[in-house]
């Protein structure tokens, strides 16, 4: 048995390829990715993972960077 979707007569969409309108900015480097956004007072975060598998955090020396 063959199942072939029929394209309804007069339809411009069903069964026809469609070009994406969002491509224009994506292929020219004009997409505003989250990483591109800069706001006043923007802070950055980094995660420092413990080298110890199981331990108790007793204090944080914020002066050390």
């Amino acid at each position, binding site marked *: 048995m063959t199942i072939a979707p029929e394209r309804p007569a007069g339809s411009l969409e069903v069964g026809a*390829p469609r*070009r*994406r309108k*969002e*491509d*224009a900015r*994506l*292929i*020219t*480097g*004009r*997409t505003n*990715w989250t*990483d*591109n956004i800069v706001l006043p007072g923007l802070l950055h975060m980094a995660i420092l993972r413990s080298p110890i598998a199981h331990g108790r955090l007793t204090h944080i020396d914020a002066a050390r960077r």
Partner: protein
Amino acid sequence: MASVSITVDGVRYDDDVAPRTLLVHHLRNALGKVGTVVGCDTSNCGACTVLLDGVSVKSCSVLAVQADGSEVTTIEGLAAPDGTLHPVQQAFHERHALQCGFCTPGMILSAVDLLRENPDPSEVEIREGIEGNLCRCTGYQNIVSAVKDAATAMRAGVAS
């Protein structure tokens, strides 16, 4: 700090940079050329690929000082000034060679360099040529088709 003079997409930029600054961070943070994205920071994914004097490089693996005196082409400067898309950009659009589009700048610029080296690559050669670029949407099939189409279009363009 080190003085660098880099021409990016046809515009010359003179800046002082810390010697350890990566080219991609210089492009994005100092020059605002945020079309070049950072995918992994570890040289694995190829999303940050740009052309350095016409040759593709992962800009997270090049120091800004290494690009001193060079010309850089990013995805932002690939189309003609009048907006006419590069044949590779056009083929990516027509072949549905992108989904989320994050890998696309690097994919396109790697493909441009591949076609410069080999204007008529086989499918295997295309796959080898872009193996340094990863796509998490797994759209490789259409990317390969697009590069093949672009190669045909560019050869026809040279012939005419």
